[in-house]
Protein backbone atom coordinates (compact mmCIF):
# COMPACT_ATOMS: atom_id res chain seq x y z
CA UNK A 1 0.00 0.00 0.00
CA UNK A 2 1.35 3.38 -0.89
CA UNK A 3 -1.38 5.40 0.80
CA UNK A 4 -0.46 8.86 1.94
CA UNK A 5 -2.65 8.57 5.00
CA UNK A 6 -3.89 5.32 6.39
CA UNK A 7 -6.21 5.48 9.38
CA UNK A 8 -6.94 2.08 10.92
CA UNK A 9 -9.44 1.33 13.67
CA UNK A 10 -9.14 4.77 15.13
CA UNK A 11 -10.83 5.05 18.51
CA UNK A 12 -11.05 8.26 20.47
CA UNK A 13 -12.35 8.57 23.99
CA UNK A 14 -12.22 11.06 26.80
CA UNK A 15 -11.15 10.35 30.31
CA UNK A 16 -13.30 11.57 33.12
CA UNK A 17 -15.38 10.34 36.03
CA UNK A 18 -17.10 8.17 33.42
CA UNK A 19 -14.89 7.68 30.35
CA UNK A 20 -16.71 8.05 27.06
CA UNK A 21 -15.95 6.81 23.57
CA UNK A 22 -16.70 9.30 20.85
CA UNK A 23 -15.08 7.71 17.79
CA UNK A 24 -15.24 3.97 17.35
CA UNK A 25 -13.11 2.02 14.88
CA UNK A 26 -12.93 4.48 12.05
CA UNK A 27 -10.76 3.33 9.14
CA UNK A 28 -10.08 5.05 5.84
CA UNK A 29 -7.15 5.85 3.63
CA UNK A 30 -6.17 8.64 1.31
CA UNK A 31 -3.92 8.08 -1.70
CA UNK A 32 -1.53 10.66 -2.99
CA UNK A 33 -3.41 13.39 -4.82
CA UNK A 34 -6.76 12.05 -3.72
CA UNK A 35 -9.49 14.04 -1.98
CA UNK A 36 -11.60 12.42 0.68
CA UNK A 37 -14.59 14.05 2.25
CA UNK A 38 -15.97 13.30 5.70
CA UNK A 39 -19.61 14.28 5.87
CA UNK A 40 -22.22 14.09 8.56
CA UNK A 41 -24.34 16.26 10.83
CA UNK A 42 -22.56 18.49 13.30
CA UNK A 43 -21.65 16.63 16.45
CA UNK A 44 -20.91 13.33 14.74
CA UNK A 45 -17.18 13.49 15.41
CA UNK A 46 -15.78 14.84 12.14
CA UNK A 47 -13.62 17.50 13.73
CA UNK A 48 -12.40 15.11 16.39
CA UNK A 49 -11.00 12.82 13.72
CA UNK A 50 -9.25 15.77 12.08
CA UNK A 51 -7.74 16.88 15.35
CA UNK A 52 -6.78 13.33 16.25
CA UNK A 53 -4.78 12.95 13.04
CA UNK A 54 -2.77 16.08 13.87
CA UNK A 55 -2.66 15.08 17.54
CA UNK A 56 -4.25 18.35 18.58
CA UNK A 57 -6.74 16.91 21.05
CA UNK A 58 -6.66 17.85 24.72
CA UNK A 59 -4.42 15.68 26.91
CA UNK A 60 -7.38 13.87 28.46
CA UNK A 61 -8.25 12.40 25.05
CA UNK A 62 -7.40 8.72 24.64
CA UNK A 63 -6.54 7.72 21.07
CA UNK A 64 -6.21 4.10 19.98
CA UNK A 65 -5.63 2.45 16.63
CA UNK A 66 -3.14 3.56 14.08
CA UNK A 67 -2.63 6.58 11.87
CA UNK A 68 0.03 6.01 9.25
CA UNK A 69 1.24 9.05 7.36
CA UNK A 70 3.67 8.18 4.56
CA UNK A 71 4.32 4.95 6.38
CA UNK A 72 5.09 6.62 9.73
CA UNK A 73 2.97 5.91 12.77
CA UNK A 74 1.82 9.37 13.90
CA UNK A 75 0.54 8.15 17.25
CA UNK A 76 4.04 7.05 18.22
CA UNK A 77 5.93 10.18 17.21
CA UNK A 78 7.29 12.47 19.88
CA UNK A 79 5.72 15.90 20.26
CA UNK A 80 8.83 17.44 18.73
CA UNK A 81 8.74 15.22 15.64
CA UNK A 82 5.03 15.91 15.37
CA UNK A 83 5.74 19.66 15.44
CA UNK A 84 8.06 19.23 12.46
CA UNK A 85 5.28 17.60 10.46
CA UNK A 86 2.50 19.97 11.43
CA UNK A 87 2.06 22.91 9.12
CA UNK A 88 4.75 21.52 6.87
CA UNK A 89 3.61 18.19 5.41
CA UNK A 90 0.33 17.99 7.29
CA UNK A 91 -1.71 21.14 7.60
CA UNK A 92 -5.18 21.98 8.79
CA UNK A 93 -7.62 24.79 8.14
CA UNK A 94 -9.79 25.37 11.19
CA UNK A 95 -13.35 26.44 11.09
CA UNK A 96 -13.98 29.80 12.74
CA UNK A 97 -11.03 31.53 11.11
CA UNK A 98 -11.44 34.80 13.00
CA UNK A 99 -10.51 33.05 16.21
CA UNK A 100 -7.79 30.87 14.73
CA UNK A 101 -5.73 33.90 13.72
CA UNK A 102 -3.80 35.59 16.47
CA UNK A 103 -5.42 39.00 17.06
CA UNK A 104 -2.20 40.84 17.92
CA UNK A 105 0.00 39.84 14.98
CA UNK A 106 -0.24 41.20 11.47
CA UNK A 107 -1.43 38.95 8.65
CA UNK A 108 1.96 39.30 6.98
CA UNK A 109 3.69 37.97 10.02
CA UNK A 110 1.27 35.12 10.62
CA UNK A 111 1.42 33.98 7.02
CA UNK A 112 5.18 34.08 7.03
CA UNK A 113 5.42 32.07 10.24
CA UNK A 114 5.28 28.57 8.69
CA UNK A 115 8.02 29.62 6.26
CA UNK A 116 10.14 30.98 9.09
CA UNK A 117 9.85 27.92 11.30
CA UNK A 118 9.95 25.10 8.76
CA UNK A 119 12.17 26.52 6.08
CA UNK A 120 14.09 29.07 8.12
CA UNK A 121 13.38 31.60 5.37
CA UNK A 122 14.71 35.12 5.60
CA UNK A 123 12.33 38.03 5.93
CA UNK A 124 12.39 39.29 2.34
CA UNK A 125 12.08 35.81 0.96
CA UNK A 126 9.15 35.02 3.20
CA UNK A 127 7.42 38.29 2.36
CA UNK A 128 7.68 37.53 -1.34
CA UNK A 129 5.98 34.18 -0.87
CA UNK A 130 3.31 35.66 1.37
CA UNK A 131 2.48 38.24 -1.30
CA UNK A 132 2.21 35.50 -3.88
CA UNK A 133 -0.07 33.42 -1.69
CA UNK A 134 -2.32 36.39 -0.99
CA UNK A 135 -2.53 37.23 -4.68
CA UNK A 136 -3.51 33.65 -5.43
CA UNK A 137 -6.42 33.85 -3.04
CA UNK A 138 -7.83 36.78 -4.90
CA UNK A 139 -6.52 39.74 -2.90
CA UNK A 140 -5.98 42.41 -5.52
CA UNK A 141 -3.32 44.46 -3.73
CA UNK A 142 -1.61 42.03 -1.38
CA UNK A 143 0.92 44.57 -0.02
CA UNK A 144 -1.97 46.24 1.76
CA UNK A 145 -2.55 43.15 3.85
CA UNK A 146 0.95 42.65 5.22
CA UNK A 147 0.18 45.13 8.00
CA UNK A 148 -3.44 44.13 8.33
CA UNK A 149 -4.88 42.60 11.49
CA UNK A 150 -7.53 39.86 11.78
CA UNK A 151 -9.93 42.04 13.75
CA UNK A 152 -10.05 44.57 10.92
CA UNK A 153 -11.42 42.21 8.33
CA UNK A 154 -14.59 40.19 7.84
CA UNK A 155 -14.98 36.50 8.62
CA UNK A 156 -14.69 35.65 4.94
CA UNK A 157 -11.44 37.56 4.62
CA UNK A 158 -10.03 35.81 7.65
CA UNK A 159 -11.07 32.47 6.23
CA UNK A 160 -8.98 33.19 3.15
CA UNK A 161 -6.04 34.42 5.25
CA UNK A 162 -6.21 31.19 7.17
CA UNK A 163 -6.29 29.12 4.00
CA UNK A 164 -3.28 31.03 2.70
CA UNK A 165 -1.43 30.41 5.95
CA UNK A 166 -2.18 26.69 5.95
CA UNK A 167 -1.36 26.12 2.31
CA UNK A 168 1.69 28.33 1.99
CA UNK A 169 4.07 25.38 2.38
CA UNK A 170 2.06 23.23 -0.02
CA UNK A 171 1.48 20.43 2.46
CA UNK A 172 1.12 16.90 1.16
CA UNK A 173 -2.07 16.47 3.14
CA UNK A 174 -4.38 19.34 3.89
CA UNK A 175 -7.24 18.87 6.31
CA UNK A 176 -9.97 21.42 5.69
CA UNK A 177 -12.47 21.61 8.53
CA UNK A 178 -15.65 23.21 7.20
CA UNK A 179 -13.80 25.67 4.93
CA UNK A 180 -17.06 26.90 3.45
CA UNK A 181 -18.83 27.57 6.73
CA UNK A 182 -20.22 31.07 7.03
CA UNK A 183 -19.07 32.23 3.59
CA UNK A 184 -21.28 33.68 0.90
CA UNK A 185 -21.60 31.71 -2.36
CA UNK A 186 -19.09 33.83 -4.29
CA UNK A 187 -16.46 33.29 -1.61
CA UNK A 188 -17.20 29.58 -1.47
CA UNK A 189 -16.43 29.43 -5.18
CA UNK A 190 -13.07 31.10 -4.58
CA UNK A 191 -12.17 28.77 -1.72
CA UNK A 192 -13.21 25.84 -3.82
CA UNK A 193 -11.02 26.96 -6.69
CA UNK A 194 -8.04 27.48 -4.42
CA UNK A 195 -8.38 24.01 -2.90
CA UNK A 196 -8.75 22.52 -6.35
CA UNK A 197 -5.69 24.35 -7.65
CA UNK A 198 -3.71 23.21 -4.67
CA UNK A 199 -4.59 19.60 -5.44
CA UNK A 200 -3.73 19.95 -9.10
CA UNK A 201 -0.54 22.00 -8.88
CA UNK A 202 1.00 20.93 -5.62
CA UNK A 203 -0.31 17.39 -5.80
CA UNK A 204 -1.69 17.84 -2.32
CA UNK A 205 -4.25 15.47 -0.94
CA UNK A 206 -7.26 16.84 0.83
CA UNK A 207 -9.26 15.58 3.75
CA UNK A 208 -12.38 17.67 3.47
CA UNK A 209 -14.73 17.95 6.39
CA UNK A 210 -18.04 19.48 5.59
CA UNK A 211 -21.76 19.17 5.72
CA UNK A 212 -22.15 21.16 2.54
CA UNK A 213 -22.82 18.30 0.14
CA UNK A 214 -22.68 20.47 -2.96
CA UNK A 215 -19.20 21.65 -2.05
CA UNK A 216 -18.13 18.09 -1.33
CA UNK A 217 -19.51 16.77 -4.59
CA UNK A 218 -17.39 19.17 -6.62
CA UNK A 219 -14.14 18.60 -4.74
CA UNK A 220 -13.97 15.10 -3.32
CA UNK A 221 -13.01 11.86 -5.03
CA UNK A 222 -14.35 9.72 -2.20
CA UNK A 223 -16.92 10.31 0.48
CA UNK A 224 -17.12 8.85 3.95
CA UNK A 225 -20.39 9.36 5.81
CA UNK A 226 -20.02 9.56 9.53
CA UNK A 227 -22.84 8.93 11.96
CA UNK A 228 -22.47 8.99 15.73
CA UNK A 229 -18.72 8.40 15.66
CA UNK A 230 -18.55 5.64 13.08
CA UNK A 231 -18.42 5.42 9.30
CA UNK A 232 -21.71 4.23 7.88
CA UNK A 233 -20.91 4.50 4.21
CA UNK A 234 -17.73 4.89 2.19
CA UNK A 235 -17.87 5.28 -1.58
CA UNK A 236 -16.59 7.10 -4.63
CA UNK A 237 -18.28 10.46 -5.00
CA UNK A 238 -19.85 9.70 -8.35
CA UNK A 239 -21.17 6.38 -7.13
CA UNK A 240 -22.38 7.83 -3.86
CA UNK A 241 -24.40 10.62 -5.38
CA UNK A 242 -25.90 8.36 -7.97
CA UNK A 243 -27.27 5.97 -5.41
CA UNK A 244 -26.59 6.27 -1.73
CA UNK A 245 -27.06 2.97 0.06
CA UNK A 246 -27.22 3.61 3.75
CA UNK A 247 -30.57 4.95 4.95
CA UNK A 248 -28.75 7.83 6.64
CA UNK A 249 -26.93 8.77 3.42
CA UNK A 250 -30.24 8.66 1.62
CA UNK A 251 -31.69 10.90 4.25
CA UNK A 252 -28.82 13.34 3.90
CA UNK A 253 -29.29 13.62 0.16
CA UNK A 254 -33.03 13.84 0.57
CA UNK A 255 -32.64 16.82 2.85
CA UNK A 256 -30.90 18.82 0.12
CA UNK A 257 -33.05 21.63 -1.29
CA UNK A 258 -32.88 20.27 -4.85
CA UNK A 259 -34.11 16.87 -3.64
CA UNK A 260 -37.16 18.14 -1.86
CA UNK A 261 -35.83 19.41 1.45
CA UNK A 262 -37.06 16.44 3.48
CA UNK A 263 -35.39 16.48 6.88
CA UNK A 264 -34.29 13.29 8.61
CA UNK A 265 -36.69 12.76 11.51
CA UNK A 266 -35.36 12.97 15.06
CA UNK A 267 -32.13 14.41 16.40
CA UNK A 268 -28.58 13.18 16.08
CA UNK A 269 -27.60 11.40 19.30
CA UNK A 270 -24.98 12.96 21.56
CA UNK A 271 -21.67 11.19 21.14
CA UNK A 272 -21.54 10.01 24.71
CA UNK A 273 -24.81 8.12 24.54
CA UNK A 274 -24.98 6.20 21.30
CA UNK A 275 -28.02 3.94 20.92
CA UNK A 276 -27.66 0.18 21.15
CA UNK A 277 -27.74 -2.00 18.06
CA UNK A 278 -27.50 0.00 14.87
CA UNK A 279 -26.89 3.53 16.00
CA UNK A 280 -29.17 4.95 13.35
CA UNK A 281 -32.15 2.72 14.15
CA UNK A 282 -34.22 5.28 16.13
CA UNK A 283 -34.37 7.52 13.05
CA UNK A 284 -34.35 4.86 10.37
CA UNK A 285 -37.46 4.42 8.19
CA UNK A 286 -36.47 0.80 7.41
CA UNK A 287 -35.92 -0.16 11.00
CA UNK A 288 -36.23 -3.92 11.73
CA UNK A 289 -36.19 -5.80 14.97
CA UNK A 290 -32.64 -6.99 14.34
CA UNK A 291 -31.45 -3.39 14.14
CA UNK A 292 -32.36 -2.83 17.78
CA UNK A 293 -30.26 -5.71 19.04
CA UNK A 294 -27.31 -6.15 16.76
CA UNK A 295 -24.65 -3.70 15.67
CA UNK A 296 -24.03 -4.03 11.91
CA UNK A 297 -20.50 -4.29 10.53
CA UNK A 298 -19.13 -2.17 7.71
CA UNK A 299 -19.41 -4.48 4.70
CA UNK A 300 -17.53 -3.80 1.46
CA UNK A 301 -19.06 -4.73 -1.89
CA UNK A 302 -19.03 -3.18 -5.39
CA UNK A 303 -16.67 -0.24 -4.78
CA UNK A 304 -18.38 0.77 -1.59
CA UNK A 305 -18.72 -0.14 2.03
CA UNK A 306 -21.98 0.21 3.94
CA UNK A 307 -22.90 -0.44 7.56
CA UNK A 308 -26.44 -1.72 7.28
CA UNK A 309 -28.26 -5.04 7.47
CA UNK A 310 -30.23 -4.13 4.38
CA UNK A 311 -27.02 -4.00 2.41
CA UNK A 312 -25.63 -7.29 3.65
Amino acid at each position, binding site marked *: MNSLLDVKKLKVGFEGAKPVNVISEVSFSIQKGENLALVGESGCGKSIIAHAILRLLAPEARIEGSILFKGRELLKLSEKEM*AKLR*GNELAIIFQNASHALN*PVYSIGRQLAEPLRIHQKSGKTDATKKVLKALAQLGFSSPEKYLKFYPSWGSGGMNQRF*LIASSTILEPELLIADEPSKGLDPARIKEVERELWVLGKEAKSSLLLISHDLGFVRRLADKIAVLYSGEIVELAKTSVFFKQPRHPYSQGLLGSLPENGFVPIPGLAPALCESPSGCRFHPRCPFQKEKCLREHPELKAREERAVRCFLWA
Partner: protein
Amino acid sequence: MISTAVKKTFRYLSSFALIVSLNFALPRLMPGDPVKNLIGEDVYVSDLVIEELRAELGLNRPLLEQFLAYIQALLRFDLGYSYHLHSPVAEVLQERIGWTLLFVGVSVGLGAGLGVFLGAYAGWKPETKLSRGLSCGFILLSCTPPYFLALLFLGIFAFKLGLFPFKGFYDTLTLGSIASHLFLPVSVLALFSASRNFLILRGSVIQEKEELYALYARAKGLYEREILFRHVVKNASLPIITLLALDFGFLFSGALFIEIVFSLNGMGTLIYDAIIGKDYPVLQGAFLLIALAVLIANILADFLYAVVDPRVRRPA
Protein backbone atom coordinates in the same frame (compact mmCIF):
# COMPACT_ATOMS: atom_id res chain seq x y z
CA MET B 1 -13.46 55.44 18.46
CA ILE B 2 -13.33 59.21 18.56
CA SER B 3 -15.97 59.39 21.25
CA THR B 4 -13.97 57.08 23.53
CA ALA B 5 -10.87 59.22 22.97
CA VAL B 6 -12.84 62.31 23.87
CA LYS B 7 -14.28 60.58 26.89
CA LYS B 8 -10.84 59.47 28.02
CA THR B 9 -9.36 62.94 27.58
CA PHE B 10 -12.26 64.40 29.48
CA ARG B 11 -11.69 61.93 32.31
CA TYR B 12 -8.01 62.68 32.49
CA LEU B 13 -8.73 66.38 32.57
CA SER B 14 -11.29 65.94 35.32
CA SER B 15 -8.84 63.84 37.28
CA PHE B 16 -6.27 66.55 36.92
CA ALA B 17 -8.79 69.18 38.00
CA LEU B 18 -9.80 67.05 40.97
CA ILE B 19 -6.22 66.61 42.09
CA VAL B 20 -5.47 70.30 41.81
CA SER B 21 -8.64 71.32 43.62
CA LEU B 22 -8.05 68.78 46.37
CA ASN B 23 -4.63 70.21 46.85
CA PHE B 24 -6.08 73.69 47.03
CA ALA B 25 -8.97 72.79 49.28
CA LEU B 26 -7.33 70.52 51.82
CA PRO B 27 -5.36 73.05 53.89
CA ARG B 28 -8.34 75.41 53.83
CA LEU B 29 -10.94 72.82 54.79
CA MET B 30 -9.05 70.89 57.40
CA PRO B 31 -9.54 71.74 61.03
CA GLY B 32 -7.08 74.26 62.42
CA ASP B 33 -5.76 77.61 61.29
CA PRO B 34 -5.30 77.60 57.50
CA VAL B 35 -2.10 79.58 57.91
CA LYS B 36 -0.72 76.82 60.05
CA ASN B 37 -2.06 74.30 57.58
CA LEU B 38 -0.33 76.11 54.77
CA ILE B 39 3.03 76.67 56.36
CA GLY B 40 3.18 73.68 58.63
CA GLU B 41 3.02 73.21 62.36
CA ASP B 42 5.91 72.94 64.76
CA VAL B 43 7.48 75.96 63.12
CA TYR B 44 8.01 78.81 65.50
CA VAL B 45 6.70 82.04 64.06
CA SER B 46 5.52 85.05 65.95
CA ASP B 47 1.89 86.17 65.78
CA LEU B 48 2.93 89.21 63.82
CA VAL B 49 4.53 87.08 61.15
CA ILE B 50 1.47 84.87 61.05
CA GLU B 51 -0.74 87.85 60.29
CA GLU B 52 1.69 89.04 57.68
CA LEU B 53 1.64 85.57 56.08
CA ARG B 54 -2.12 85.49 56.19
CA ALA B 55 -2.18 88.63 54.13
CA GLU B 56 0.58 87.44 51.86
CA LEU B 57 -1.04 84.07 51.21
CA GLY B 58 -4.25 85.91 50.49
CA LEU B 59 -6.29 83.94 53.01
CA ASN B 60 -8.43 86.99 53.74
CA ARG B 61 -9.54 87.30 50.17
CA PRO B 62 -12.51 85.45 48.64
CA LEU B 63 -11.96 81.78 47.77
CA LEU B 64 -12.25 82.21 44.03
CA GLU B 65 -9.53 84.82 44.04
CA GLN B 66 -7.39 82.55 46.17
CA PHE B 67 -7.95 79.71 43.75
CA LEU B 68 -6.91 81.81 40.77
CA ALA B 69 -3.81 82.93 42.58
CA TYR B 70 -3.08 79.32 43.43
CA ILE B 71 -3.41 78.27 39.79
CA GLN B 72 -1.16 81.12 38.70
CA ALA B 73 1.45 80.01 41.20
CA LEU B 74 1.18 76.43 39.97
CA LEU B 75 1.82 77.57 36.43
CA ARG B 76 5.03 79.17 37.66
CA PHE B 77 5.92 75.87 39.38
CA ASP B 78 5.55 77.65 42.68
CA LEU B 79 4.40 75.02 45.18
CA GLY B 80 4.89 77.09 48.29
CA TYR B 81 7.70 77.41 50.74
CA SER B 82 8.86 74.90 53.33
CA TYR B 83 9.62 76.65 56.60
CA HIS B 84 11.22 73.44 57.88
CA LEU B 85 13.69 73.03 55.09
CA HIS B 86 13.99 76.75 54.38
CA SER B 87 13.63 76.38 50.68
CA PRO B 88 10.88 76.41 48.05
CA VAL B 89 8.97 73.12 47.90
CA ALA B 90 9.46 72.80 44.15
CA GLU B 91 13.21 72.81 44.61
CA VAL B 92 13.13 70.22 47.36
CA LEU B 93 10.93 67.94 45.29
CA GLN B 94 13.09 68.38 42.24
CA GLU B 95 16.09 67.23 44.21
CA ARG B 96 14.40 64.10 45.49
CA ILE B 97 12.12 62.92 42.70
CA GLY B 98 14.94 61.88 40.38
CA TRP B 99 16.23 59.24 42.76
CA THR B 100 12.80 57.90 43.52
CA LEU B 101 11.94 57.68 39.84
CA LEU B 102 15.16 55.81 39.19
CA PHE B 103 14.38 53.45 42.04
CA VAL B 104 10.76 52.89 41.00
CA GLY B 105 11.57 52.70 37.29
CA VAL B 106 14.20 50.01 37.69
CA SER B 107 12.01 48.01 40.05
CA VAL B 108 8.89 48.22 37.90
CA GLY B 109 10.87 47.11 34.87
CA LEU B 110 12.45 44.19 36.67
CA GLY B 111 9.19 43.27 38.35
CA ALA B 112 7.29 43.29 35.07
CA GLY B 113 9.90 41.09 33.41
CA LEU B 114 10.06 38.64 36.29
CA GLY B 115 6.29 38.55 36.83
CA VAL B 116 5.49 38.05 33.16
CA PHE B 117 8.08 35.33 32.71
CA LEU B 118 7.18 33.33 35.81
CA GLY B 119 3.46 34.02 35.45
CA ALA B 120 3.54 32.74 31.88
CA TYR B 121 5.22 29.56 33.02
CA ALA B 122 2.82 29.05 35.92
CA GLY B 123 -0.19 29.59 33.68
CA TRP B 124 1.12 27.26 31.00
CA LYS B 125 1.80 24.40 33.37
CA PRO B 126 -0.32 25.18 36.43
CA GLU B 127 -0.11 21.65 37.81
CA THR B 128 3.63 21.37 38.31
CA LYS B 129 5.13 21.68 41.76
CA LEU B 130 7.16 24.70 40.74
CA SER B 131 4.05 26.53 39.52
CA ARG B 132 2.14 25.78 42.68
CA GLY B 133 5.07 26.89 44.78
CA LEU B 134 5.43 30.10 42.81
CA SER B 135 1.72 30.86 43.10
CA CYS B 136 1.71 30.31 46.85
CA GLY B 137 4.83 32.41 47.26
CA PHE B 138 3.49 35.30 45.24
CA ILE B 139 0.09 35.22 46.93
CA LEU B 140 1.80 35.36 50.29
CA LEU B 141 3.96 38.20 49.05
CA SER B 142 0.97 40.22 47.93
CA CYS B 143 -0.49 39.86 51.42
CA THR B 144 2.59 41.35 53.09
CA PRO B 145 2.91 45.07 53.70
CA PRO B 146 5.88 46.22 51.56
CA TYR B 147 7.73 47.78 54.43
CA PHE B 148 7.63 44.58 56.47
CA LEU B 149 9.37 42.69 53.70
CA ALA B 150 11.85 45.56 53.42
CA LEU B 151 12.52 45.26 57.15
CA LEU B 152 13.11 41.55 56.81
CA PHE B 153 15.47 41.99 53.90
CA LEU B 154 17.34 44.74 55.70
CA GLY B 155 17.59 42.66 58.83
CA ILE B 156 18.72 39.48 57.13
CA PHE B 157 20.90 40.62 54.23
CA ALA B 158 22.35 43.85 55.56
CA PHE B 159 22.53 43.46 59.35
CA LYS B 160 22.95 39.70 59.83
CA LEU B 161 24.86 38.73 56.72
CA GLY B 162 26.46 42.10 56.02
CA LEU B 163 26.14 41.56 52.28
CA PHE B 164 24.84 44.99 51.44
CA PRO B 165 25.10 48.51 52.84
CA PHE B 166 22.04 49.38 54.88
CA LYS B 167 21.46 53.03 54.20
CA GLY B 168 21.61 55.74 51.57
CA PHE B 169 21.78 55.74 47.80
CA TYR B 170 25.58 55.72 47.56
CA ASP B 171 28.88 56.29 49.39
CA THR B 172 30.70 57.57 46.39
CA LEU B 173 28.84 58.61 43.27
CA THR B 174 29.87 55.60 41.19
CA LEU B 175 27.68 53.09 39.43
CA GLY B 176 28.99 50.23 41.57
CA SER B 177 28.25 51.97 44.81
CA ILE B 178 24.76 52.98 43.69
CA ALA B 179 24.04 49.46 42.50
CA SER B 180 25.10 47.85 45.76
CA HIS B 181 23.07 50.35 47.75
CA LEU B 182 20.01 49.96 45.57
CA PHE B 183 20.16 46.18 45.29
CA LEU B 184 18.05 45.36 48.35
CA PRO B 185 15.40 48.07 47.99
CA VAL B 186 15.05 47.34 44.29
CA SER B 187 14.70 43.61 45.00
CA VAL B 188 11.91 44.23 47.49
CA LEU B 189 9.96 46.55 45.23
CA ALA B 190 10.58 44.39 42.17
CA LEU B 191 9.23 41.37 44.04
CA PHE B 192 6.09 43.30 44.89
CA SER B 193 5.58 44.48 41.39
CA ALA B 194 6.30 40.95 40.16
CA SER B 195 3.74 39.40 42.50
CA ARG B 196 0.96 41.49 40.99
CA ASN B 197 2.04 40.87 37.41
CA PHE B 198 2.55 37.21 38.12
CA LEU B 199 -0.98 36.62 39.37
CA ILE B 200 -2.57 38.55 36.51
CA LEU B 201 -0.49 36.84 33.88
CA ARG B 202 -1.00 33.39 35.31
CA GLY B 203 -4.77 33.74 35.16
CA SER B 204 -4.63 35.34 31.78
CA VAL B 205 -2.40 32.63 30.27
CA ILE B 206 -4.66 29.94 31.69
CA GLN B 207 -7.50 31.54 29.76
CA GLU B 208 -5.62 32.43 26.58
CA LYS B 209 -4.00 29.06 26.09
CA GLU B 210 -7.46 27.60 25.47
CA GLU B 211 -8.08 30.05 22.65
CA LEU B 212 -8.22 28.73 19.14
CA TYR B 213 -5.23 30.71 17.93
CA ALA B 214 -3.02 28.86 20.37
CA LEU B 215 -4.22 25.55 18.97
CA TYR B 216 -3.66 26.85 15.46
CA ALA B 217 -0.14 27.90 16.39
CA ARG B 218 0.43 24.29 17.38
CA ALA B 219 -1.09 23.12 14.12
CA LYS B 220 1.36 25.35 12.29
CA GLY B 221 4.20 23.38 13.77
CA LEU B 222 5.24 25.57 16.67
CA TYR B 223 6.61 23.82 19.69
CA GLU B 224 5.39 24.26 23.28
CA ARG B 225 7.66 27.09 24.36
CA GLU B 226 7.25 28.91 21.08
CA ILE B 227 3.47 28.78 21.33
CA LEU B 228 3.64 30.20 24.81
CA PHE B 229 6.13 32.97 24.26
CA ARG B 230 5.36 33.91 20.67
CA HIS B 231 1.61 33.66 20.69
CA VAL B 232 0.02 33.36 24.09
CA VAL B 233 2.11 35.73 26.18
CA LYS B 234 1.61 38.70 23.93
CA ASN B 235 -2.15 38.37 24.16
CA ALA B 236 -2.08 37.55 27.82
CA SER B 237 0.09 40.47 28.78
CA LEU B 238 -2.17 43.15 27.33
CA PRO B 239 -3.93 43.65 30.68
CA ILE B 240 -0.52 44.11 32.27
CA ILE B 241 -0.11 47.43 30.49
CA THR B 242 -3.16 48.91 32.17
CA LEU B 243 -2.22 47.25 35.41
CA LEU B 244 1.28 48.70 35.33
CA ALA B 245 -0.14 52.17 34.98
CA LEU B 246 -2.75 51.81 37.69
CA ASP B 247 -0.13 50.10 39.76
CA PHE B 248 2.27 52.94 39.36
CA GLY B 249 0.59 54.79 42.20
CA PHE B 250 0.63 51.75 44.43
CA LEU B 251 4.25 50.97 43.66
CA PHE B 252 5.16 54.58 44.13
CA SER B 253 3.60 54.48 47.58
CA GLY B 254 5.31 51.17 48.30
CA ALA B 255 8.57 52.76 47.25
CA LEU B 256 8.02 55.49 49.82
CA PHE B 257 7.91 52.94 52.63
CA ILE B 258 10.88 51.02 51.34
CA GLU B 259 12.87 54.24 51.11
CA ILE B 260 12.09 54.97 54.72
CA VAL B 261 13.29 51.56 55.84
CA PHE B 262 16.49 51.77 53.82
CA SER B 263 17.03 55.46 54.64
CA LEU B 264 17.13 56.42 50.99
CA ASN B 265 16.93 60.17 50.52
CA GLY B 266 14.07 60.17 48.04
CA MET B 267 10.45 61.22 48.19
CA GLY B 268 9.62 58.63 50.84
CA THR B 269 11.92 59.96 53.49
CA LEU B 270 10.93 63.48 52.51
CA ILE B 271 7.30 62.64 53.14
CA TYR B 272 8.14 60.79 56.34
CA ASP B 273 10.05 63.75 57.71
CA ALA B 274 7.27 66.06 56.57
CA ILE B 275 4.68 63.98 58.44
CA ILE B 276 6.73 63.98 61.60
CA GLY B 277 7.43 67.71 61.34
CA LYS B 278 3.92 68.53 60.08
CA ASP B 279 5.50 70.21 57.09
CA TYR B 280 2.24 70.55 55.13
CA PRO B 281 3.55 72.43 52.08
CA VAL B 282 5.98 69.61 51.33
CA LEU B 283 3.26 66.99 51.80
CA GLN B 284 0.93 68.79 49.43
CA GLY B 285 3.63 69.31 46.86
CA ALA B 286 4.59 65.65 47.07
CA PHE B 287 0.98 64.56 46.68
CA LEU B 288 0.52 66.76 43.64
CA LEU B 289 3.68 65.41 42.06
CA ILE B 290 2.83 61.76 42.70
CA ALA B 291 -0.71 62.21 41.47
CA LEU B 292 0.58 63.81 38.29
CA ALA B 293 3.08 61.01 37.79
CA VAL B 294 0.30 58.45 38.09
CA LEU B 295 -1.87 60.40 35.67
CA ILE B 296 0.92 60.60 33.12
CA ALA B 297 1.66 56.90 33.52
CA ASN B 298 -1.98 56.14 32.72
CA ILE B 299 -2.01 58.37 29.67
CA LEU B 300 1.17 56.68 28.44
CA ALA B 301 -0.41 53.29 29.04
CA ASP B 302 -3.40 54.26 26.90
CA PHE B 303 -1.11 55.22 24.07
CA LEU B 304 0.95 52.08 24.47
CA TYR B 305 -2.18 49.98 24.47
CA ALA B 306 -3.30 51.54 21.22
CA VAL B 307 0.09 50.79 19.69
CA VAL B 308 0.21 47.17 20.87
CA ASP B 309 -3.39 46.10 20.41
CA PRO B 310 -4.54 46.38 16.80
CA ARG B 311 -8.16 45.99 17.91
CA VAL B 312 -8.00 49.45 19.47
CA ARG B 313 -6.68 51.27 16.41
CA ARG B 314 -8.91 49.65 13.86
CA PRO B 315 -8.92 51.78 10.69
CA ALA B 316 -12.23 53.03 9.37
